[in-house]
């Protein structure tokens, strides 16, 4: 089986979705699967390919979401401009975090990323005059592509599908290109990579900044799709964990993994919310327990992620070739 086939099947099925399905609930699920898959992919650029595990990526997601929302509400600017601004802000923030990654290792780096997202949460929730504080801000709906006011869910499917394919291609680049090999070397053994002429520090910073920028793109589109930005959601550690979880469950440092992880996590969450959402505070947090169990099971039984597991399965059934 050729390398790109599983991805072609996955994105092909997603593209066929709106032609077959009319149900708004299912289309919403498809949109979220693709969107969260794209976000987990953006996380994967730093966490998987560069080996810089962050639990603060909600910071970049939130920067994207807030940029699009605030520029739209305060100055009536197009969300596309907001998206660009979010990307710029996140790139700068990513460069700072990337610089930190050269000073802090392992758990200390993870803690720094969490702290960073929490600082942004505090700013966004307290700066009432500008961000509307903890109430959050509604994103105005203005019909048209330039204003990203797409009423038809099918339109959104194709928009986030394009985003998903873009993120997939970015990851493919990281698997096959010169930079990709060098980044993998840095991840595996930084000193050995340095001794072979790889500019390890710069490469890590660039990877983290790129990951941040791509996460901001996802955040900006998400804000337009959902229509409301709540600081306690977009800057939450929960959200950061979800990006990481989807990538880890799907397969760290694989291009299709984050999307497969997203299929699992997004459907699970949607289902749980529908089941337990209204029952009362007692069960609302149940998804955290289930995430935890899912993570333990994956790390214990399929440490290479769903992609690795599926690849093994396919090979065993005589379909030669490598996992996507």
């Amino acid at each position: 089986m050729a390398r790109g086939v599983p991805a072609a099947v996955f994105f092909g099925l997603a593209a066929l979705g709106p032609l077959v399905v009319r149900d708004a609930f299912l289309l919403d699920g498809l949109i979220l699967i693709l969107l969260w898959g794209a976000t987990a992919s953006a996380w994967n650029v730093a966490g998987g390919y560069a080996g810089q595990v962050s639990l603060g990526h909600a910071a970049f997601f939130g920067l994207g979401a807030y940029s699009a929302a605030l520029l739209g509400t305060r100055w009536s600017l197009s969300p596309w401009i907001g998206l660009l601004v979010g990307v710029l802000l996140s790139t700068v923030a990513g460069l700072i975090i990337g610089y930190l990654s050269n000073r802090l290792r392992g758990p200390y780096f993870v803690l720094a990323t969490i702290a960073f997202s929490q600082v942004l949460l505090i700013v966004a929730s307290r700066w009432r005059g500008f961000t509307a504080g903890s109430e959050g801000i509604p994103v105005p709906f203005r019909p048209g592509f330039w204003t990203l006011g797409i009423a038809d869910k099918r339109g959104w499917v194709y928009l986030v599908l394009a985003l998903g394919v873009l993120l997939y291609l970015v990851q493919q680049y990281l698997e096959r290109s010169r930079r990709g090999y060098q980044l993998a070397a840095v991840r595996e053994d930084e000193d050995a990579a340095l001794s072979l002429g790889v500019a390890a520090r710069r490469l890590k910073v660039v990877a983290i900044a790129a990951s941040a920028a791509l996460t901001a793109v996802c955040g900006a589109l998400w804000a337009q799709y959902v229509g409301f930005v709540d600081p306690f959601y977009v800057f939450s550690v929960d959200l950061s964990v979800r990006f990481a979880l989807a990538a880890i469950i799907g397969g760290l440092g694989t291009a299709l993994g984050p999307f497969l992880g997203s299929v699992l996590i997004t459907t699970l969450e949607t289902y749980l919310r529908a089941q337990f959402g209204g029952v009362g505070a007692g069960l609302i947090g149940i998804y955290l327990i289930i995430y935890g169990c899912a993570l333990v099971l994956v790390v214990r039984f399929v440490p290479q992620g769903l992609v690795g597991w599926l690849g093994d399965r396919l090979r065993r059934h005589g379909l030669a070739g490598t996992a996507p």
Partner: protein
Amino acid sequence: MSFLSISGVTKRFGGVVANRDVSFEVAPGELVGVIGPNGAGKSTLFEIITGFYRPDEGEVRLEGTRLTGLSPDRVCRLGVARTFQKLRPFPAMTVLENVMVGALTRTRDVRHAREHAREILERVGLGDKAHAHGRTLSTGQRKRLELARALATRPRLLLLDEVTGGVDQGSIPGLVRLVRELHRDGLTVLVIEHNMRVITAVAQRIVALYLGEVIADGPPDVVARERRVVEAYLGQAYAQ
């Protein structure tokens, strides 16, 4: 002008002096051995030449270009490659990919790098292992992989840290032959070696370190008989 010049290099770690005023030169095309008992400062000197450590005093120059103060990747791009005493193949990569990382320092083209890596694997005798994973190799094969990776960066100066250390007796002659061939093809080589028989057979010149200082520098047979070297290795009783 000398090819590699090490002048007045001193490196302290707290109160321990790992290198004290180390100075020597290496001529182009020379194969120089660095010997000394454990803790003599051989590996520290390598780390300083390759930019992993910064000396407290002194400097290292390659054909007049100052290496001291440059990052390890810059030093590599200037033509200095090294192997590590503790072998460190990239575990998730195949043997070929390991070598490609080195090759990609000299070319932007992945296909070129792959071809170059294949040629080098053939040369070090790992041609049939291209698609194996680093962790499945024997120690001797890993040494060859380290060597291949370093060679792929097209070095002018090669630093080898313990080529035969930890390798079974049967693999030693092959590795020694390989180093000799590389040297004969024009590479300047600086090699740390514990095995005296290997080093005296291979090196044109030996620099002996003891407690961070150069205690002898000359042809192998002379250095091996030098009183201070024998003392350093075996203790004073044997030096009579």
